[in-house]
């Protein structure tokens, strides 16, 4: 079932891989800079970034692309290298000590769920136009899914797409929200309703919408951390050509399944994007925190520290088990991948709360970076409990798809969307 999203060639012979690894190592050493110590990856709340700040990052992406190290396991015909997943992993390992392009949230979506979904569902013509530009850092894609009135219930969106008068494209009208990275992105992968009389899940279509197109306005939304890293968009008859439709018209729910699956962590190069955690390696940040708080000998703080480490390590091991289950289980990958997502959604908040417990006053008021980092981790701790499918959505997926429990009676499945809207209105009026 893991093959639902994987697209690399089968693994090569070891000698080939070794040679590749060595070449990559040499190129990296000659061309890139070492990165500073500390965790890699994008942290929310790091600050609000302008489009200009990402120009050097885009240039760095282009450099890697031109050297043949972008899209290593992506198809050759679309600008990738057509090599195996093992090649991609080998490069990622070699590149770990180097400063790679930091394209923020839009980079995360573009090279993650968006491109995996495009590669599976977009037409060859679409892919030939967009994917090389994606790999070269010229096109960053964000996710235009959520709306003010539809989040978990993604199929409940009301942004509408109607045919234009010439019949060569579409006019899209509505509002999207919580779009991470929208302030500097080039395209949005946008879900819109194309048929209001079809059953709710059968009238949806995906479009690649230009973020700077006519009729699009983007308003930054300040987050819980104080930084504005997501945006709300208002679309007023934004024109999109027929060529920019992804998948079949009205069949967008099939495409959405891939997207949600990838968001849960299945089908990445490293299927769960989890480093193998070292049982002997308590997060040094926490050890510093407990010492700075003068609580290294306090049994309460020690217990809290060990609790965090236990859960961190257990989550790493869960990642390995999921990889095995995706290969061997007869249950759908969309259910199995939810374990990882639920673990993040449940344990991140626990971790952050224990961190406050350990640090006592420090994360509440601070003069140094450690206190601020702990506070930020606290504020960010529910991102994965909510974004990309809330804990409750993961629990539904596990209980229905893995455990085989019945669905609850539903008020919307299989009914025309216009009717679903009407009965929801009646419900609100009655209560």
């Amino acid at each position: 079932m893991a093959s639902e999203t994987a697209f690399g060639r089968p693994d090569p012979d070891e000698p080939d891989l070794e040679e590749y690894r060595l070449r990559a190592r040499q190129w990296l050493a000659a061309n890139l800079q070492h990165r500073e110590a500390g965790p890699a990856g994008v942290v929310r709340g790091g600050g609000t970034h302008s489009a200009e700040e990402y120009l050097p990052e885009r240039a760095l992406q282009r450099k890697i692309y031109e050297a043949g190290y972008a899209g290593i396991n992506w198809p050759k015909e679309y600008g990738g290298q057509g090599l195996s997943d093992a090649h991609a992993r080998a490069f990622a390992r070699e590149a770990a000590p180097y400063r790679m392009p930091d394209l923020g949230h839009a980079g995360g979506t573009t090279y993650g769920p968006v491109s995996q979904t495009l590669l599976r569902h977009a037409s060859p013509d679409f892919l030939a136009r967009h994917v090389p530009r994606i790999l070269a850092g010229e096109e960053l894609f964000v996710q235009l899914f959520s709306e003010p009135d539809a989040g978990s219930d993604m199929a409940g969106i009301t942004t509408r797409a109607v045919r234009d008068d010439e019949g060569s494209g579409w006019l899209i009208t509505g509002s999207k929200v919580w779009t991470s990275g929208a302030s500097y992105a080039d395209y949005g992968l946008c879900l819109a309703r194309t048929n209001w009389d079809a059953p709710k899940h059968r009238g949806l279509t995906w479009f690649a919408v230009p973020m700077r197109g006519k009729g699009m306005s983007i308003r930054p939304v300040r987050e819980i951390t104080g930084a504005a890293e997501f945006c709300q968009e208002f679309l007023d008859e934004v024109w999109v050509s027929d060529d920019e439709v992804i998948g079949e018209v009205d069949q967008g729910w099939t495409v959405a399944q891939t997207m949600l699956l990838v968001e849960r962590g299945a089908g990445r190069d490293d299927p769960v994007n989890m480093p193998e955690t070292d049982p002997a390696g308590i997060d040094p940040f926490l050890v510093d925190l407990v010492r700075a708080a003068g609580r290294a000998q306090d049994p309460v703080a020690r217990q809290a520290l060990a609790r965090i480490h236990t859960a961190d390590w257990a989550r790493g091991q869960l990642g390995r088990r999921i990889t095995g289950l995706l290969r061997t289980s007869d249950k759908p990958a969309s259910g199995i991948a939810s374990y990882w997502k639920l673990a993040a959604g449940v344990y991140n908040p626990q971790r952050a709360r224990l961190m406050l417990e350990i640090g006592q006053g420090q994360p509440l008021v601070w003069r140094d970076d450690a206190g601020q980092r702990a506070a930020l981790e606290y504020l960010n701790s529910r991102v994965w409990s909510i974004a990309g499918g809330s804990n409750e959505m993961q629990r539904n997926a596990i209980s229905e798809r893995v455990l085989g429990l019945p669905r609850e009676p539903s008020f919307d499945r299989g009914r025309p969307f216009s009717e679903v809207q009407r009965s929801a209105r009646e419900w609100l009026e009655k209560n």
Partner: protein
Amino acid sequence: MDPELSPDQRLLRETAERFIEASLPLAKLRELIEAGGEVDPAYRREAAEVGWFAFLAPESLGGGSVSDAGVLDTVVLAELRGRYLQPGSFIDTNLAVATLSREGSEEQQAKILPDLIAGEAAVAWAVADPSGDWSGPAGVHAQAVPGGYRLTGRKGLVVEAQSAQWLLLTANTPEGPTQFLLPVSTPGVGVEELRGLDLTRRLCEVHLDGAVVDGSAVLGRPGQAGAAVDAQIRLAAVLGAAESAGAMQYLFDLTLQYCKDRVAFGRPIGSFQAIKHQLADSSLALEMSHAVVTAAAQAVAAQDRGDQEAARAAHAASLANAFVSDAAIELAHNCWQHFGGISYTWEHDFHLYLRRLTVDAALYGSPTWHRERVCQLSGV
């Protein structure tokens, strides 16, 4: 169960499961409990034929394993034993087999080890003191006397000591912790069988009232037992967690089926989101428990390769045990809730699992004890 078991390990699992089903399924275990009886020694001898006590000894000493790592095979058995709530000394005897193989004298290896591997004799590991300190020598003092030692003190939470032939015991001496392997029948050794929460096994307190043993009872070098005890704790923590994971899986499957079958308000109760979500949480706890058991078993299997591997094994064993113990009780309580009134009956199997899992969580170190140990191992 680990999705990556080898074909040989799968075969081992099938054979062992067939043995349990034929000799001591839950229904028979219940009869034993009702009668206040104990499992026949033949059970242990037959289990030994399936290899229950052989995997942690090398072939040269009459052991041997089905894969190249005896720990992983022993984990397969431990999960099954937990699944079917099997009584008797298993972990403790295996610890003794491993310790004898590593550092037993030639005489001990020749006299005692074959009996253990063949299931002719069983061992009770007397390591914790009655308050639950699992660090090794706590509770018992060994005083040098001409030709041997005099042992005084108490050990607690000793599993099935009432039917064991040997005690594996760690005591304090002025030179440091020393390990002894002595017959339970030694004068001055008393086994007090306590009544307890777990109905499937007996936990005992062992009294040492000046029991005198000669030098041949010392296992390993006097005063140098620290490393051996650490190795035993690692192994016991992993095998104990594996037993719990096996019991958790059975209880979870039983509960899941009940929630599919039980109808209330015109629907199976398993269709209510309140129940579905708790089952999903239990299922996550269960998957993570299996994952940490596998990881810790692999770490312990690799512990002899170097210092780094040894450190990883020690951490992983304690982390796995702490995680599984907490997860087991959480899962058992969720299941308890789903069963409703029927969970309160003696006849329903639920309480047997609740009792066993609760006691297993404290055996071989409570989660709190293991968490403190992790801090110490990490130099915090």
